[in-house]
């Protein structure tokens, strides 16, 4: 579903953010991305939703390749991708509800289904009581949960979460984590960058560690994971989703 082939990326200032990354993530798989601050985690995630493209090598998500994707292809890919940004990126002048609904409006969801979906997902992240608040009227953790709700609302086939629990207490973290696990179990590939090593250790999901843009550890290459997860089901998924 997601495949990095010799992907390297250097930023303008000479920072090597990704160096020869090779990676395959299957459908239904749940992957933790760890590593020190500045290791290139966010950059790797940006490559998945094609906000950045590698200087060399290829990133392929479903049928979309970083080598050939047009702006429209990228837009289409993102409609099927849920993204929780490290800095939330909420629309400042829209309420919680409108922020979440916006992601549905963009993909042209039928108008009458929107309200229902929005309120369901807001309840799931524990924000049912804040639907009409503006982002600036929310606490840090509440904003983060709005961002998560927006990423979940359109049933993505890939979910990317960049430090989604950095502002959450343990209980809320566990709740969100359970939500992401459910999503993954229902067939979505989930990639989550996190510094919360407790979370990583407590669960036994695949863990990839980056340092200076290089993959220095990938648990999938040590313990053989479940068969399903490793099946290259690119072709089948692509048909179904795009």
């Amino acid at each position, binding site marked *: 579903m997601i495949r990095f082939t010799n992907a390297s990326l250097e930023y303008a200032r000479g920072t090597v953010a990704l160096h020869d990354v090779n990676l395959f993530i299957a459908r239904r798989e749940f992957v933790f991305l760890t590593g020190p601050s500045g290791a290139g985690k966010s950059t790797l995630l940006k490559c998945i*939703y094609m*906000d950045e493209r590698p200087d060399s090598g290829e990133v392929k998500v479903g049928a979309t390749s970083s080598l050939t994707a047009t*702006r*429209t292809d990228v*837009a*289409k*890919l*993102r*409609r*099927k*991708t849920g*993204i929780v*940004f490290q800095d939330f*990126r*909420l*629309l*400042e*002048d829209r309420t919680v509800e409108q922020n979440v609904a*916006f*992601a549905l*409006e*963009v*993909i042209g969801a039928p108008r009458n289904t929107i309200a229902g979906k929005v309120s369901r997902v807001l309840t799931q992240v524990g924000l049912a009581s804040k639907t009409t608040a503006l982002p600036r009227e929310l606490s840090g953790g509440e904003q983060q949960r709005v961002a998560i709700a*927006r990423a979940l609302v359109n049933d993505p086939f890939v979910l990317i979460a960049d430090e989604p629990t950095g502002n959450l207490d343990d209980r809320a973290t566990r709740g969100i984590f359970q939500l992401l696990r459910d999503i993954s179990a229902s067939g979505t590939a989930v990639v989550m960058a996190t510094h919360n090593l407790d979370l990583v250790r407590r669960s036994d999901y695949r863990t990839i560690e980056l340092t200076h843009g290089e993959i220095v550890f990938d648990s999938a290459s040590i313990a053989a994971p479940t068969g399903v997860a490793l099946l290259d089901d690119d072709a089948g998924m692509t048909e179904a989703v795009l």
Partner: protein
Amino acid sequence: MSLATREALVSFRRAPLLSALSITTIAFSLFAFGLFGLVVLNIRQALETVSERVEIRAFAYDGTDSRSVAAAVAEISAYPEVLRADVILPQEALERARREMGEFKDVFESAFLPTAIEVRLKPGYRDPDAVQRVAGKMGAFAFVEDVRYGEDWINQLHRIRNIAGATGMVLGLAFAIVAVIIIGATIRMAMMARAREIEIMRLVGATDGFIRRPFLIEGAIKGTVGGALALGLTWFATSVIERYLSFDTVFFDTRLAVAGVIAGAVIGLAGSMVSVSRQLRQA
């Protein structure tokens, strides 16, 4: 589409100040442009009125018999350039001079004027060349003592009309360009204020077309409102001038007025188009 229109309308509510500014700028620019256009229009109109008065007069020697004058008038009337030719008898000439020159009417108390033939030219022939040609032919009649047609004045008139036309075009264009620049910058600024919004839209999967549409609709609406406002302002200004200065002014006809509003819409649309494309290219 319905979503785009809704988004466009919502943006007025979200950023009333920005919207008001864009509209005011468009209105003000088009207003300045419109006022200037009206000045040109009125100058042209005035010149048209004046040039209707282009006339050539041939003065007969004292004692010329009226039949030869009548024959000459008949011949002159047949020239292709000539609209009409009339005989002015001394008495008429005097009365007319008194009437036309109010302040100096005492001058004419005891004036004597000769018989004259007065010729007016057709619209297409009111230029210095045609005037000279006709005057030459009139001077050839034996009984004509003198032909007068205000050479300087006609040359001057023609020159003013040409120059007014040219400066009108040039200054008008300059005004229009300034208007487009200001409007473009205003919309671009509105755009920058929403750069974050546009970026987020792109990140959640909105296509460029989807993002662009509400902005274009918004631009067109602002432009139309601005154009209508400008038209109203211009109309108001001219009616004030007309009323208090008792000038007779010409206003735009319906076709021009509608064209003005459409120009506003086009400017708004074009400004949005340029700005949104630039913003999208950057993001």
